[in-house]
């Protein structure tokens, strides 16, 4: 896999305003195909807002977003999903009463076609299709090692596992770009290590491009190819983990300097 040659996602001068608050202020960044990119920054820096713009929840007031070379600044979330962008949420957003299997199955919805009647009769192409989707879901269950909870309802799982199920549902859509909003928040060290391994494996096995927001600097430095730092809605640094680690503006933002 060659990294850095073929941009998958290009964000250009994006600004978002909530009333008087400028949540994003002319942010530009490029994520090449096959890369793991981390977006970091202090609380309220605009990280989640940026993710919401990419996935079509918000529309930027200025600027453009291009995905796979095509402008798609003004698409709505379902259209974004159909393009091949999937995401997980900062707070787990699973269907708590549904089984893990069914939750992941919902990630396949965009891939399902066919008529209501055939589906109801579970006959012919409908049946074949469901079996194919189930097989795809089973491969993901195997990949993320959640066989033991396949039939358990999602709400009954410990938090770390719910996060993993959410990742599974996002993967079920076979995305080109995977957006992870704090995939490791609230996890213990072992769960974090597992999650890191899964993220690296997803990237390595499926070649999925990944953009993640994360607060744990150890994790960010370990797994990302490329780090973008936001502060007060502005991009203050962009580069390799080593580069960003030494950047003075980043140190200031994290350690704090006197604002005049």
């Amino acid at each position: 896999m060659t990294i850095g040659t073929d941009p998958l996602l290009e964000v250009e001068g994006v600004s978002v305003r909530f009333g008087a608050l400028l949540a994003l202020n002319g942010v530009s960044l490029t994520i090449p195909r096959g890369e793991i990119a981390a977006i970091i920054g202090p609380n309220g820096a605009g990280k989640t807002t940026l993710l919401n713009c990419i996935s079509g929840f918000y529309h930027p007031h200025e600027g453009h977003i291009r995905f796979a070379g095509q402008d798609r600044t003004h698409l709505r979330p379902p259209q974004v999903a159909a393009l091949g962008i999937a995401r997980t949420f900062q707070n787990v957003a699973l269907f708590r009463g549904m089984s893990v299997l069914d939750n992941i199955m919902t990630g396949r919805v965009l891939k399902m076609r066919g008529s209501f009647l055939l589906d109801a009769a579970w006959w012919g192409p409908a049946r074949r299709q469901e079996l194919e989707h189930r097989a795809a879901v089973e491969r993901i269950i195997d990949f993320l090692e959640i066989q033991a909870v396949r039939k358990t309802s999602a709400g009954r799982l410990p938090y770390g596992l719910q996060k993993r199920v959410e990742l599974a549902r996002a993967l079920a859509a076979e995305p080109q770009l995977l957006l992870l909003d704090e995939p490791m928040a609230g996890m213990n060290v072992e769960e974090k290590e597992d999650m890191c391994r899964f993220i690296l494996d997803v990237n390595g096995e499926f070649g999925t491009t990944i953009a993640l927001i994360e607060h744990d600097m150890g994790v960010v430095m370990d797994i990302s190819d490329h780090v973008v730092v936001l502060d007060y809605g502005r991009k203050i640094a962009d580069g390799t983990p080593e580069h960003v680690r030494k950047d003075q503006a980043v140190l200031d933002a994290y350690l704090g300097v006197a604002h005049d």
Partner: protein
Amino acid sequence: MSIANATLDTFPKRVRANAERWPRRVAIREKDLGIWQSYTWRDYLDRSRRIALGLASLGFARGDKTAIVGDNRPELYWAMLATQSLGGVPVPLYQDSIEKELAYIVDHAEARFAIAEDQEQVDKLLHVRAQVPRLEYIVYKDPRGLRAYSEPGLLSLAELEERGEKFALGHPTYVEDEVARGQGEDTAVICYTSGTTGTPKGAMLSYRNLIAMAGIATEREGLRPDDEALAYLPMAWVGDHMLSYAQAIVAGFAINCPESAATVLHDLKEIGPTYFFAPPRIWENLLTNVMIRVEDAAWPKRKLTHAFLTLAQDLERRRLNGQPLPLLPRLLAPLGALLVYGPLRDNLGLRRIRIAYTAGEALGPEIFVFFRALGINVKQLYGMTEASVFVAVQKDGDVRLDTVGTPMPDVEITISEAGEVLFRSPGVFQGYFKNPEATRQTVEGGWIHSGDAGFLDGAGHLKIIDRAKDLGRLADGTMFAPKYLENKLKFSPYVKEAVTLGPGRPYVTALVNIDLSAVGNWAERRGIAYTSYTDLSQKPEVYELIQQEVVRVNRSLLEDEVLRGAQIRKFLILHKELDPDDEEITRTRKVRRGYVAQKYAALIDALYGDRDRVAVEAQVTYEDGRTGTIRADVAIRDVASR
């Protein structure tokens, strides 16, 4: 095909015969991607032949050893047969071994080849190979995460089989010729015993050993080709080797590989095996699971279940003791079967069981009665790696509570003057690999020294009291059997592990490990907040809970004339779980008493002092070999003073 057949003297020859006789009958199932995939005896033969050809293409020579590391997977059983087909010796290893243990065995066994399940094992083996250059080739089944690896001599099973195909073009009958050269006296497998003391020893078992004992057990126990077994115990354990490999091939029944270690209990339910082999640990887990769910049920259900369970256990205890059965409980039993026992059995996945064994360590009598009372034919098996497993088994219809049954056919048992159990049989091993010294200590004139203290009762039943060296006396001469007490403690769902101390001391004390899931569940139901295992273990409420269990054990001890003096006076709850990674218990979960006594010397001193609290530090080792420290303030409870 008769079970005893002199021309079928190796497993490769037997699998060929099975494939000819039952080409379409299922030999192995594996749950993969949520579906049970079936492989026939024909597949068993073909796949192992392909692997054998691949190994041959890499220069596998007769006598070479193959280390086999991973969960129970069809491919790994085939790899075992492939190795044997070429006149080599498979050496199955515990999949959760840390690098150091793996390195010791790979080096000691002189393995040139290793066949591993996945990246986790490959990573360990690559590190091992850096220290043990004799290990040349590492073959893996699951390529996940390994695509970017480019180490020499590392290849996937698919690549190996591909190489085999090319090799076969020039050598079409290579495998068949090598199989024909194999003989019954050849070493079939080297099983490294985890060893409660010292370094592991490699027991060499011949084809003759394994086939003879598999055949004897199959005939006596009435195993059939339509039996179903679950292959879930570590492949390195001789029990799995006997059941899932030797007996499955000799009797021709099917084995089922679970999806993952975490799904075993679920897969058990789906398969509903008819033949089931479990160490006490698994029976204890099953019991704990049942009891948790019973406690969570609404009270009418809970009361009903408890009432019927008590009734059934009472009946079963009388039956096992040969006492007459009272009329009313007998009349109620069918109702119990309908309402409680049947559903419970079904829920556990044990509804179809014809034969089930417990082996390894002694199973607590209460646990034993519990399962038998549900109508599950659990029997004690007394065996050793060095005996090709089978020494004594309780016969159907002649099961007693306090014995391990009668000797298997062709097995002779005698008791030495010191009270140690000695035996000889066709299963007596060839010796320890490269360790004649240890072999001499174990086998004398064909008799194996079991290391267990026991006796044969009037009806020819073997009764094991304890390890010969563990049996002890208190300072005042009172007889003390540690394991007996520990098993009584472990009957409680809240107690995961217990170590009792006493020999040469004024009174008996116990170190207790709580069961995190059971006690955690108990604490949640009572609204007791806790942050960690250590924290939970030191809650006064938890001490109260465990004290009730200790008092129960002491009370039941009063019924035993010999051991009634050995009551538990003081106990403490350990702040960490005994863990094989910390070398406190073996991989088969036997407590390493000497090591524990040494490691927790400060705690033990406190148990025999007059303090009620002691501060400790404990080293823990993680699976990757790193170490850390746990600190805690451990409370000591005096049972007698309250």
